[in-house]
């Protein structure tokens, strides 16, 4: 390793094992949640996050010291970590929770990540995570973590450029009005949006290499974090079935029907 004034970057990528995007979601009979006895895989936005971290390393080469992935989940989440290692991460941390424990909430996850970051002797410069998980669509973890740490944040990133010399990241965000460009000082939290990149497939040689990469196991207790849920889900139901529409003969009839339904506003 060459000595340099620029500190080498440590990237942390939190990932989540979520219901696979292709699965047909069904509400469970008790109406307390969805049927979880289905295929799970890495949250697609987190895959994009892992891919971005690997691409940053491909661009900056030696300037990136480590890419660490972390997940908070039951024992089965280890598979998801292995996939991330096979995509190019260097090491992993598994904060293991019991199989029967409820899924951690975004605030709990953010607190756990905070505790983990504070534990890292070499510090963390960039945290990249998915903007939301496709099971709960909360979209809160990245923002909460930034708040807890007091770090800069850039969410819904569609382009990321990291400058280790200047210790900033230039990030293009997708917002309702279009695109916004931000320059964030390190340390920074970035959440990924769909158009940031297209994740690679884990090639077989990388899957075999992933076997040898270290996976550290921790518990929430060791990190001093309480993952007890603060929210109680009262009921989960499917959306009401769509009722058939009606055909209208012309625009006037359309306007009349819209007025009937009370959807038109009063003209000023």
């Amino acid at each position, binding site marked *: 390793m060459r000595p340099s004034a620029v500190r080498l970057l440590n990237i942390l990528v939190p990932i989540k094992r979520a219901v696979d995007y292709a699965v047909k979601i069904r509400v469970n009979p008790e109406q307390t949640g969805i049927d979880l006895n289905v295929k799970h895989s890495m949250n697609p936005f987190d895959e994009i996050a892992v891919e971005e971290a690997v691409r940053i390393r491909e661009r900056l080469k030696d300037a990136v010291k480590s890419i660490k992935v972390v997940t908070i989940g039951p024992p089965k989440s280890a*598979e998801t970590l292995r996939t991330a290692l096979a995509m190019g991460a260097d090491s992993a941390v598994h904060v293991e929770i019991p199989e029967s424990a409820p899924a951690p909430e975004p605030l709990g996850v953010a607190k756990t990540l905070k505790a983990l970051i504070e534990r890292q002797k070499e510090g963390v410069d960039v945290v990249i995570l998915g903007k939301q998980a496709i099971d709960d669509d909360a979209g809160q973890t990245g923002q909460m973590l930034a708040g807890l740490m007091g770090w800069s944040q850039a969410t819904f990133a569609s382009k990321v450029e990291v400058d280790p010399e200047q210790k900033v990241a230039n990030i293009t965000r997708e917002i309702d009005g279009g695109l916004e460009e931000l320059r964030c000082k390190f340390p920074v939290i970035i959440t990924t949006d769909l158009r940031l990149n297209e994740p690679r497939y884990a090639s*077989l*040689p990388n*899957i075999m290499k992933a076997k040898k990469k270290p996976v550290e196991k921790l518990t929430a207790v060791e990190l001093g974090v309480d993952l007890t849920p603060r929210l109680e889900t009262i009921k989960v139901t499917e959306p009401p079935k769509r009722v058939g529409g009606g055909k209208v003969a012309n625009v006037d009839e359309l306007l009349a029907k819209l007025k009937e339904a009370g959807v038109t506003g009063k003209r000023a």
Partner: protein
Amino acid sequence: MFRAASWSLRATKYCPKRLVEPARMFSVSAIRTEGFRLNSLDTFTEEENMFRDSVKRFAVDVVGPKVREMDEKESMDPTIIQGLFEQGLMGIETSSEHGGAEASFVSAIIAIEELAKIDPSVSVMCDVHNTLVNTILRKFGTKEQQGKWLPLLSESKLGSFCLSEPASGSDAFALQTRAKKDGDHWVINGSKMWITNSYEAEIFLIFANVDPSKGYKGITCFIATKDMGVQIAKKEEKLGIRASSTCTLNFDDLRIPAENIIGGEGKGYKLAIEILNEGRIGIAAQMLGLAQGAFDKAVPYTYQRTQFGQPIGTFQGMQFQIAEAAVELETARLLTYNAARRKEEGRSFTKEAAMAKYWASQVAQHVSGSAIEWCGGVGFTRETGIEKFWRDSKIGAIYEGTSNIQLQTIAKFIQQEYSR
């Protein structure tokens, strides 16, 4: 993993000759007794499962959109070949020293199956390259030959296995291609026919006879590159696996350096027999994937298409047919993966490989044919790709040992076992 410590087993002749290293199966929980690991036949290591998911995604995302076009044009898209190399799918068992993934034989079988679920043409290309070409070099090549050829085969150059000729298919060792010594070179004359991958390949394993007076004991395996003068003649227009190139090759005073003999002079017969055994399991995997792919495409349709007020898949007649097909798929799967595991364990697997290949090709024909019928007119049109599986399946009973040859092999084993 837990041991039944008090259970001791006497070594019988069915004891595996080589234990699978624990490191390769670190996350498979199994009942472990001395020298044995007892698992259900569809147990896979974590790597093998991850690999299956990875190949599946590649097949669906990258190969899937191009399948119809490649079939209609009878041509393999170069980006697919490149994609296979990039994914490490062309050096699955090769050591990492030579650019490979150093994975298990079963991993190769998994890759072949998953590719076949989407396109059996791409699957056979990967199969021939891995189980025939790579394996010959790994098993019979000298250190120098391995160092020279395996990296090329792992990274970018497609390989081809050239045994059959116009006048010798099942009777492979009646081949006519001749090799004459000329100083430190051999001069090869003759032609090969029905050679898979040949249109796109750059590396060719050519079987030629150096001394016809010795009969099959003169057959020798040579490795050649295209630029040495391998002529690609007629490209066959086929019923199925149309994207997989099948050509006639001509050798007209083709000069090959003597150091390009693999396995030694006159050893070609033994080499080919052994390698084709393994290749058989590969074809079984291809046919299995084909059958599964057809089934997976057709069955959901039967639960969507309604006639007489109910989904057609819920009529009892259809249910019975679908269930029978599922049973057949399971049998083909177990035969294939068990033969593959036996090979990994160092046990004899020739009979099991023959059974797997023979049976999987039959299942493929039957299930893909049923798949068309279940989908009615929609199954008959080329648009949905279901009929393609049926056309592709026919070759299963023909190449890498016809069904009759497989049955003969199996019968020989039975005769040996039962007539003592």
